[in-house]
């Protein structure tokens, strides 16, 4: 239950502004890939193109191909809704639905799409998803309470549970720990390690130690200057990127000389 993503010559635009230029990258199935780079270099923008969330913003568009196990996400007639149900996303700030209980938040992907589900199946799905997100033990006695009453770290794990409840092939995470404390961050990182047994995980992070801890492969993005497009500078095994980068810019960034 996981698919690989291959990106070929992708340009990402906001209106006429070229935000990310000419990215080609191969993301293996059942692996964790980290995107690192300075702020504004387009890594989040690029991540959002991987499940067609980019085009939600007015004027945003892309050129190029993103292949999910060989099928082009941007091919003619492809419904972005189908794409997003296969490629889930976790956002920077935890965003549980405030009107829903913890249980309904987990079931949101099912219920919002009006799929019929029996109570037994729903209970099983809630339990397996929350256990998958390492949250079950903390919330099993208060599933009917609102999700917004949880702590920030718990909310973020609830959002991960919500994302895996729709059984996607790929999970994209946009700086999932940047709003969390170290303990919650550790919980999420452990979770990412477990998730890669079943899912393809792509994570954007500002935290280089985090990228080194959780990812198998790392992509370094950089930007030449304000108003210039972001580019993929280097992509390789995480160990190589951090200990033996081939590009000068990568070495400067991972050694803390800038950024």
């Amino acid at each position, binding site marked *: 239950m996981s698919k690989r993503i291959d990106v070929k010559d992708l340009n990402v635009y906001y209106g006429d502004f070229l935000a990310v230029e000419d990215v080609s990258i191969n993301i293996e199935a059942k692996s964790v890939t980290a995107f690192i780079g300075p702020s504004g270099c387009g890594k989040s923008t690029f991540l959002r193109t991987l499940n067609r969330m980019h085009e939600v913003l007015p004027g945003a568009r892309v050129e190029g191909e993103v292949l999910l196990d060989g099928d082009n996400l941007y091919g003619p007639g492809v419904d972005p809704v189908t794409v997003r149900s296969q490629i889930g996303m976790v956002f920077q700030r935890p*965003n549980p639905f405030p009107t829903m209980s913890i249980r309904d938040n987990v079931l949101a992907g099912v219920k*919002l799409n009006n799929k019929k589900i029996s109570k037994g199946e729903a209970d099983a799905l809630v339990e397996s998803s929350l256990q998958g997100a390492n949250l079950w033990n903390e919330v099993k006695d208060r599933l009917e309470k609102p999700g917004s009453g949880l702590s920030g770290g718990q909310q973020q794990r609830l959002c991960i549970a919500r994302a895996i409840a729709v059984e996607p092939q790929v999970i994209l995470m946009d700086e999932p720990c940047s709003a969390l404390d170290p303990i919650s961050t550790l919980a999420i990182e452990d979770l990412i390690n477990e998730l890669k047994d079943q899912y393809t995980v792509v994570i954007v992070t500002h935290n280089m130690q985090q990228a080194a801890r959780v990812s198998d492969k790392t992509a370094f993005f950089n930007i030449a200057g304000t108003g210039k497009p972001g580019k993929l500078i280097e992509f390789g095994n995480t160990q190589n990127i951090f200990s033996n980068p081939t590009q000068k810019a990568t070495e400067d960034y991972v050694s803390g000389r800038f950024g």
Partner: protein
Amino acid sequence: MSSTLTPVRSKRSALTKGQLPKFAPYVVLAAALIVGAAILGVIGFNAFGWGIVSAILFTIGLVGWSAIAEGSRKAKDKLATCLVVGSFLIALLPLISVIWTVLVNGIPGLIAPGFLTSSMNGVTGVYDNRAVEEGAPVIGGIYHALIGTVQITLVATLISVPVGLLTAIYLVEYGNDGRLARAITFFVDVMTGIPSIVAGLFAAAFFFAVVGPGTKTGAVAAVALSVLMIPVVVRSSEEMLKIVPNELREAAYALGVRKWRTIIKVVIPTAISGIASGVTLAIARVIGETAPILVTAGFATSINNNVFGGWMASLPTFIYTQILNPTSPANPDPSSQRAWGAALVLIILVMILNLGARLIARVFAPKTGR
């Protein structure tokens, strides 16, 4: 030498030195009231003037004392406090005065027998003359007007809420600030400023043209009121939909939820408390309209339960006709008593609506409990 080490406790802490004592405002207030009464006593006493003069004296006294004892910063602070509190009291004055007047004048009408349960059907000047001259009870009530107000407002709401809410959804979710969206926003703003009598004339003319001349029914009045309501509903719903965080929409999209489902199941439920109270306030705004109802629903003295046929009364038009054309021109007092009673009922209705809006907002508000 040693005396500096042993703390000498004076009555007041060194940190609170140079402050006015706590009772200072009360002393100044008492002095201001007394001096004010004395001044007013010289030039002729009245309560309103006493309040104004005392307030001015109080401000001068307190600020002056503070300037001497505490310095200019504290004095400015006191002056600002006096101005803020004074403005608040001035703003409150008409409100309290209105409620007081309506209560005093309205309660006799409200407690008159059959006031809420009978209409004005068959009530003629003869009865009113008898009530004044022989002390018989004032008969006749507002049941027909109450029915009319409730039905007309209900129909107006049924028209306005779907139209207004859908317009707001278009503007926020689909408009993308394009040419059409900007045009709609502009015309909604223009509609907000339409005088209510113009809305009434529009509805009357529209129905004259479509149904036939002389069409005056509750439904026509409801259309006139919805012309006034729709812009209010659009604006308040639009504001409420705008403050729904975009992150929630994205969260739903990322789960593979379609846009229209996201709007129905995530955006609207999140904003529903604000939308509901906005709608209630829009109702409260139009429930007291008089002119558009007079030209669209006419005026009736008997009960008419059919919104789609026949003239209909409403509370504002009832008040208007009772004051302007008393049932007994020789003895207008019973009519004005009924009018004040109807005014009291109208204020109570609006108050209930406002409380209802708060209740709805609280019930639907996103929960944050643990």
